């Protein structure tokens, strides 16, 4: 399961982040890393961009990046 399969308001725990090192580092620095809890706040028009709450950060990520963030079922 990944972020694009969540519903708005739902919380989940990150299992892994499957992308290149630079992007993984950036997501990790924004609290999106294995074992962190994320909450899906909003999805933009046409499901292009996902707004997450990760710790104290509000982070917007594009769908292709959201698909890389695998969640614990």
């Amino acid at each position, binding site marked *: 399961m990944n972020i694009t399969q969540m519903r708005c308001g739902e919380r989940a725990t990150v299992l892994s982040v499957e992308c290149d090192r630079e992007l993984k580092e950036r997501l990790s620095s*924004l609290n999106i890393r294995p074992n962190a809890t994320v*909450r899906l706040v*909003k999805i*933009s*028009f046409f499901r292009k961009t996902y707004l997450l709450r990760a710790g*104290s*950060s509000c982070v*917007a*990520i594009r769908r292709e*990046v959201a698909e890389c963030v695998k969640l614990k079922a």
Partner: protein
Amino acid sequence: MRKTQGLTLILVGNPNAGKSTLFNLLTDGHAKVGNWHGVTVGALEREAKFGEERRNVVDLPGIYSLDAMSLEEKGAVKYIEEHRDAFLLFVSEYSSLERALPLFQKLSRGRKCALVLTKRKMFERAGGVCDIKSLQKSLGIPVLSAEGSKRSLKEKIFALPMREVPKMGELAGYRPPFDRLTRAEKFFNNGFFCILTFLCALLLSFYLTFAPGLLGDFCKELIESFFSETLAGYAENIPSPVLKSFVIDGLLNSIGSVLCFLPQIALLFLFLLLMEESGFLSRLAMHTDGFFSKLGLSGRAVFSLLMGFGCSAAAIMTTRGLDNKRIQRRVILCLPYISCSAKLPVFLTLSASFFKNPFLAVLLLYALGVGIALAVALFLKKDSPPFVMELAPLQVPNPVSVLKGLYFQVKQFIIKLATVIAAFFLLSWVLSSFRWNFTFCPVEESMLASICGGLKFLFAPIGMNDWKIAYAALSGLIAKENVAGALNLFYGGFPYSAASAFAFATFLLTCSPCVSAIAATAREWSAKAAILIALAQTVSALLLSYAVYFLLTGGAVYVAIALVPVIALLIMGKNSVEKVSRRRRHHPKKIHR
């Protein structure tokens, strides 16, 4: 940058932590601040004084980690690595400390450092708790809270012990804020309301700025009548014709005709500053990212494009916050088509010649510019980078920050007017009022006529076989405000037809930006590229203006007639191809027979 002696203090932290605000506080500087991740795009260095003590303070763009993604972050990381003996002053919001700590821990190894925490009230309102003493003890470095008077904070920072730490510790005495959104954040997180609010705010700002009788137009009329009636009235009594021409034509008509637009320019900058300070821009970037991804850009580009409405050169500098060089160059190529505030005087001068209410005409020109910019982005589209962006907290714009920003922009405009623009107009007046033997003469017999007479062919295809128009247009390369002033210097308005006015406006909309923007492009790209781009844009702008004039003066009929057989051929050609479509695993395949 002036190099100074003494200890160097580098401000390091995540974007939007308050580094530039702290920099301004320590150094009495005027670094740009805003509620947006990526306001600071380069290293700024300045001396801070406290009594006899001196410190060299450096403000850097925010970084999230040492594996930097954007260009500005890479520059910041490189700066930190090159200045190993500098003191690192980590700056973090209270709310983001947990997240920023791994970065600080990596940077602190074997270096002298301290931590300053900002935005305490916002943190406590959201339910966060932090005991500075416990935190200081567990981290093993001095920790300060950025509150109290400017003097007391400066005193504390200057009194910081400058000692190396082997390794920074972990958090203690810290509870993060609750995970909850404010009502405003919930409202603007909705894409429909966010974009609707932006469009309404944009229309309102344009309406207040340009509509007849409203604030912008009212203030403009006041300044205009002061120059053209009050002062010009006094100047009419000057007995010497040369001196009278100098005062009325060289000063009042030209400089006055640009200065009168200051209220409207200020209103546009006020709108931009309010957007920046409120934190609204990052939500707009999020909701428009899907649209920008179709153009090969990302939502981050919305910041640079909006800044383009203020100043093209400043907007080009903000492109350092973009993800990579390819995206940066694409946005740089789009920015000249966004109408900066300097083009406002000439657009209003042109549209005022034919419209009682120039509001719609100016709105059309701005919309056209945005449309062309987006078309250029689409044309240049190759790949689209991954979009990851932290949203700034929503807040009521700080009136002090907004007024400071507005004051800075107004001051810059007046300085530019009093120096570059005034020098250009005075030179233009001298060259257009005297023969080579310095006898006073009509403009057609002047030195300028003999120098620029050959340029009259440039705008002949748009019904303006006049060197003065060409001179006015090319003066825009120095500063776009010069165009309006030059038109007033030679004509007192715009003397040609509406079709010529629109074609001329099209040229100004699409030609090369001013030398400041060309210089900014040279810094971000290369000098050769900047000059080539400027030349290509000017030539294409000329050709486009010819095409627009042709279409407006009856050519549209010929184009429509010519297009009919082409469209018919396309339709007939399509029907004659038999398409056989087969679906396999949801991927349709077409076989043409």
